[in-house]
């Protein structure tokens, strides 16, 4: 019994400490403004962002920035919980696919006034980049870096097969090159059956995938599933079960990493991660397009944004921080383009000579895409997550020969259509 009482006492003391630990935050910083900053990322991003934040607090002694970070999927779970609880952090990292939902539900502050009065200086930022974070002409999210769809390939393998990869392939070229490479080296080809390829395909004909799906239009989708089928049936392509085993959705398990395939599809900000995982030099080419394309489908996409919560009590101070994050060379020397190529051309120029060769390759790639890019599609509709997931299983259905391209098209379009209708 004595032991029991002793344990209870220890616990009581421990609980007391926890309480004390939990409630000490605000008391100390009298007269200072506290901003909460929340992002997702890995070790490198967490470290550099924290360093930048510390520099900012040093330069602005009246501001205290409390940082929070999480992994990608946890980030969105918690952010929705805070939104439901009415205590969203002041500054949140935002993704293109979530922008619409958070904006539509009135959770994001309108940044346009801060841009107009110069609190956020955008003189060196291309208009299209501000537009990419805008809904109905008002800016709700400030891009942190530019990104573009990319086909990554292994130059050692293409060289060994005696082929050269131009800046941008057509589907037919990709098909033929794939066959040649398989013949010469035994390495297989991967063809992206996912939402990015659908987007690119629709854009090649001057259309937008979500417009088509919302209208129940099957034109692009039929072409897409026919392509998926065509590549899947090629001897040179990776087999569906091996593809499913490798799982190209995760950087480190992409089939290019262990040399099962010579190419893969991704976004340019993943290039470094893919190269690191593969442990050998890789190169970039633009997404392929159909031979009868009427328009250049390539586009620049914000890798991620910072947004300010509508519930924030310190929007002005938060906007000042965003300005600094965007325009300060000093800040970006710490960040080193980890979130993508800085959107301020002045900052990008200043950083360029400092970064490693892989990041430089991305700089060059983004430059090349920027020169030919057409404007990005409107922010994804709320049903995108589910439509993308159904797309993945439909791609498997085509690859495992459960569906003909026609069946896949009919099924996919009708399901996507009803999802978009119900939003």
């Amino acid at each position: 019994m004595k032991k029991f009482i002793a344990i209870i006492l220890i616990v009581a003391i421990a609980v007391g400490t926890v309480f004390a630990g939990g409630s000490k935050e605000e008391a100390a910083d009298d007269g200072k403004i506290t901003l909460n900053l929340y992002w997702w990322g890995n070790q490198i991003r967490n470290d550099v962002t924290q360093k930048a934040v510390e520099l900012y607090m040093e330069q602005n002694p009246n501001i205290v920035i409390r940082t929070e970070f999480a992994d990608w999927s946890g980030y969105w779970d918690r952010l929705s919980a805070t939104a439901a609880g009415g205590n969203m952090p002041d500054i949140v990292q935002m993704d293109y696919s979530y922008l619409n939902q958070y904006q539509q539900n009135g959770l994001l502050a309108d940044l346009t006034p801060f841009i107009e009065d110069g609190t956020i200086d955008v003189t060196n930022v291309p208009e299209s980049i501000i537009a990419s974070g805008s809904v109905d002409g008002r800016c709700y999210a400030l891009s942190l870096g530019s990104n573009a769809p990319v086909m990554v390939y292994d130059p050692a393998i293409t060289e060994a097969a005696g082929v050269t990869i131009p800046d941008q392939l057509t589907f037919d070229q990709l098909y033929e090159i794939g066959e040649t490479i398989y013949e010469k080296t035994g390495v297989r080809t991967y063809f992206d059956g996912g939402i990015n390829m659908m987007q690119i395909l629709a854009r090649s004909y001057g259309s937008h995938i979500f417009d088509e799906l919302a209208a129940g239009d099957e034109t692009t989708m039929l072409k897409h599933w026919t392509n998926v089928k065509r590549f899947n049936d090629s001897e040179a392509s990776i087999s569906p079960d091996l593809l499913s085993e490798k799982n190209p959705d995760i950087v480190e398990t992409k089939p290019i990493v262990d040399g099962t395939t010579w190419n893969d599809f991704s976004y340019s900000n993943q290039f470094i991660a893919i190269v690191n995982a593969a442990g050998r030099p890789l190169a970039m080419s633009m997404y392929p397009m159909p031979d009868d394309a009427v328009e250049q489908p390539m586009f620049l996409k914000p890798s991620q944004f910072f947004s300010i919560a509508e519930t924030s009590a310190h929007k002005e101070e938060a906007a000042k921080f965003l300005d600094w994050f965007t325009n300060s060379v000093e800040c970006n020397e710490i960040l080193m383009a980890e979130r993508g190529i800085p959107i301020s051309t002045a900052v990008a120029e200043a950083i360029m000579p400092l970064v490693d060769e892989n990041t430089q390759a991305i700089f060059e790639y983004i430059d090349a895409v920027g020169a030919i890019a057409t404007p990005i599609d409107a922010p994804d509709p709320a049903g995108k997550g589910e439509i993308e997931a159904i797309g993945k299983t439909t791609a498997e259905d085509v690859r495992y020969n459960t569906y003909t391209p026609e069946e896949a098209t009919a099924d996919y379009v009708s399901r996507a259509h009803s999802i978009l209708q119900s939003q």
Partner: protein
Amino acid sequence: MINTVIYHIVTAVFALVMLYPLIWMVLGSFKDSNQILRDAASLFPDTFILDNYATGWRGFAGFTFGTFFKNSFIIAGISTIGAVISSAIVAYGFARCEFRLKGFWFGCMLVAMMLPFQMIMIPQYILFNKMGLVGSFLPIILPQWFGQGFFIFLNVQFIKGIPIELDDAATIDGCSIYGIFPRIILPLIKPSLVTSAIFSFMWRWDDFMAPLIYLNNPATYPVSYALKMFSDPTAGSDWGAMFAMATLSLIPIFIIFLTMQKYLVEGIASTGIKG
């Protein structure tokens, strides 16, 4: 004699097969990140490196794994003490007393066990937020102090296995219901208390969902949650560091298990009670 030898050989070989994946994981923590993913079949590192442990321990944004381990110990430790004590008390009520609505409350407990945490996470967040507890350990620890379905149920089953004659004898000796619990029952359900403690500690140690939702300061993150942050589907992951820290994070649960499991050996069998 031959029986014993066969017993040991069979068990040992089987144990080794069981352990292969684990050994792979531990050795993986000494491999180069790339080797972990590319050479699936090789067990031993090409070159034996300790870098993963150094990089991993460094943690995130200036908070090392020292901080995360400390937080995990506080969360798992206090939760476990609470869950074990409260669940035993509640279990005694369910197992030995007849009272109104008993079936109803027991049913509530079972339903609560069947509802995935993700489905009540949002409402519970709103609730704790209204109470002003978000940001502290309390939303994670506090519910553990009011009995956990799994452990209540486990203890109920064990208490029901104790002969009722023992209670009757104690009552005749003038012991009240409240006296029977600590004097007769508690010593006899040691195996289930120990089992509860092992599980509770492990589950709180591994749980990242509650910390993810309720904690908002990296200084308070536990190991389970911090481990997730080595991987980012878009920006790339450091598997080596994650394997290293995942390996380290197994040590405390394993030590708890080792120290606790010896109490499992002495059950009712060694307390000398004749049924």
